C-alpha cells in the first residue's frame, strides 16, 4: 500500500505522450470534431426544446438554459473518462504502446501523466467546440461562458484521473463496463444536471454532493453560463481540485504497480 501514497516523479517528457495522442487525433480530426457538434444539437433539441416545452422554467430560468451547462459538464466527464478508460486500456494492453514508450527515456509516470493530460485536453476540445453551438442557440451568456474552457480542464483532469484508476485495476476491457454503467450513468442523471438536486431525498443529495464529482462541475458550469455566481463556487472548485489531485496521483501509482514488476 505504501507505494500508492508517494509523490510520482513526472517530468516534462509527459508532454511527448500528450503530443503523440494529439497527432493521432488531429489526423482524423473530421471524425473527431463532428460528435461534439451533433451532441450539442441533439441534447438541446430533444431535451431542451422537447421536454423544455412542458417544463418551461426552473426557478425562473428557462429549462433549456438550465441544462445547457449540464450538457457541457457531461461532455467534459465523458470525453476524459472514456479516453482514460477504454482508449488508454487499448493502448496499454492491446497495442503495448506503454511498453514501447518506457523503453525510451520516458518513465511510466511520464506516460500516465501524458495520458491524463490528454484526457483533460479532450474535455477542453469538446467544450470549445460545443460553446459556439450553445451560443448560437442563445442559451448561454457570453463572455462569462468562456470560463467553461478552464473549468473543462479542471473537470477533465478529475475525470481522467478517476478513469485511469479504474483502468489500472481492471482485469480486462469488459470489466470497465462496471464503472461506466454503475457509476457514470447514475452520475449523469443525478448530479443536478437535468433537474435540481433539491427535489431528491436528502440521502441521495448527500451521495451526489460527496460521491458524484459531476455535481460540482455542473454547478460551477451553470454559474458561468447563466451567469449567476455564488460563494458556493469556492466549495465546488476546491472539491474538484482536491479530487483531481488525489485521483491523478493515485492513478499514476496504481499504474506503476500494475506495469512495473
Amino acid at each position, binding site marked *: 500500500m505504501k507505494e500508492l501514497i508517494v509523490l510520482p516523479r513526472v517530468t516534462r517528457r509527459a508532454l511527448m505522450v500528450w503530443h*503523440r495522442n494529439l497527432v493521432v487525433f488531429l489526423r482524423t480530426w473530421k471524425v473527431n470534431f463532428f460528435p461534439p457538434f451533433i451532441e450539442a444539437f441533439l441534447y438541446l433539441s430533444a431535451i431542451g426544446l422537447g421536454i423544455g416545452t412542458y417544463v418551461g422554467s426552473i426557478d425562473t430560468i428557462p429549462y433549456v438554459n438550465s441544462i445547457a451547462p449540464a450538457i457541457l459538464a457531461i461532455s467534459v466527464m465523458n470525453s476524459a473518462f472514456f479516453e482514460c478508460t477504454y482508449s488508454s486500456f487499448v493502448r496499454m494492453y492491446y497495442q*503495448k504502446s506503454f511498453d514501447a514508450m518506457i523503453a*525510451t*527515456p*520516458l518513465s511510466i509516470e511520464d506516460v500516465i501523466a501524458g495520458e491524463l493530460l490528454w484526457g483533460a485536453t479532450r474535455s477542453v476540445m469538446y467544450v470549445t467546440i460545443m460553446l459556439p453551438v450553445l451560443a448560437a442557440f442563445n442559451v448561454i451568456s457570453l463572455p462569462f461562458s468562456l470560463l467553461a474552457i478552464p473549468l473543462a480542464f479542471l473537470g477533465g483532469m478529475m475525470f481522467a484521473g478517476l478513469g485511469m484508476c479504474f483502468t489500472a485495476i481492471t482485469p480486462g476491457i469488459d470489466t470497465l463496463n462496471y464503472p461506466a454503467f454503475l457509476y457514470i450513468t447514475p452520475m449523469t442523471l443525478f448530479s443536478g444536471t437535468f433537474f435540481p438536486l433539491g427535489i431528491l431525498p436528502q440521502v441521495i443529495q448527500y451521495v451526489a454532493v460527496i460521491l458524484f464529482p459531476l455535481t460540482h462541475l455542473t454547478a460551477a458550469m451553470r454559474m458561468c453560463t447563466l451567469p449567476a455566481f455564488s460563494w458556493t463556487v469556492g466549495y465546488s472548485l476546491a472539491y474538484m481540485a482536491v479530487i483531481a489531485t488525489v485521483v491523478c496521483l493515485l492513478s499514476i501509482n496504481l499504474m506503476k504497480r500494475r506495469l*512495473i*514488476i
Partner: protein
Amino acid sequence: MENVPPAVIEADNLHKTYSGTVAVDGIRFSVRKGEIYGFLGPNGAGKTTTMKMITCISPRSSGSLTVLGMDPEEHPAEIKARLGVVPQETNLDPDFSCHANLTTYARYFDIPPETAEKKADELLEFVQLQDKRDAPVDKLSGGMKRRLILARALVNAPEILILDEPTIGLDPQARHLIWDRLKLLRAQGNTVVLTTHYLDEAARLCDRLVIMDNGKILIEGAPADLVLEHVGKEIVEVEKNDEIAACIRTMNVPFEIFGDTIQIITQNAHETARILLDQCRPKKLLTRPATLEDLFLKLTGRSLREGA
C-alpha cells in the same frame, strides 16, 4: 596482459523475485564494449527478466547492476537514452505508418524533427523497408515488423542494442538479414546483447554467451571454446539397438543414449567411425562436429519446459 575492452554492463549477485518466485537467482556477468553477447536458456530461465533489469524496466530485488557505468534505479532516463531495445513482443504503434513509427519514437528521445525525418529514411533503408515507408504497420508481414522494430531501436544511435528473441518466428531470409545487420552494427563498434532459443543463431553471432537455467548462469564463454571444453570436438551418432549398444560397451569409449540414437563423443570422428563400422556394423552412422546444441542439452537436460 591481454587488452580487454571495458565492460559496459556489469552484474554481480543479481537477484529478481516476483511475488515469491525467484526469476533471477544471483547471476554475475559482464558485457564488454563492442561484442555480441548472448543469453541462452530454456523457457523460464530468467533471460527476459535479466533484459528487463538491464533496460531499466524492472527494478532488481538485490545485488548490483551497472549499465554504462550507471545504476538503472538512479539514472533510468540517462541509461535508456543510450540503449536500443528490441522487445520480444511486437509493440509498434498501429496508429502510424512505418516512417511515422520511427519519427514518433525519435521524439521520445528528444531528437529534433528534421534530424528524425532523415534518420528514419536511413534506417528504413538499413532494414530494407524503404518501399513500405508510408504503409501502415498492420499491413506488414511478421518479418517486416521485426525489421521495423530493429530500425526503431536504432533511432537514437544506441551504444548498446538489447534484443529479446530478435528472430523468433521469422523465415530464413529475414533471419539472415537481421544477423547481417547485427554483425554490421558490431563492426561499427556497437555492443549487442541478445537472448535467443536458436542455438545456431547464438553460435553464429555471439562472441561470448551465457547459458542460463532456473535463474542461474550455468556457463559463460565463447561458443566454440565452451563446446570444445564441455562436450568435445566431434560426435558420431549411430542408430540404437541392443546389439550395437552391447558392442559399443566393449569398445570402452564414452557414449550416451538419447531416444533411438547413441552418441559417441570423440576427438577424431573419422577414426571412431571406422572402428565402429568395422566392429559393430551399424546400419546408419553419422559423424558431425559437436555443437552448441549438444552443450545446451547436456547442461539443461532434455525434458520439456512448460509455461513461460
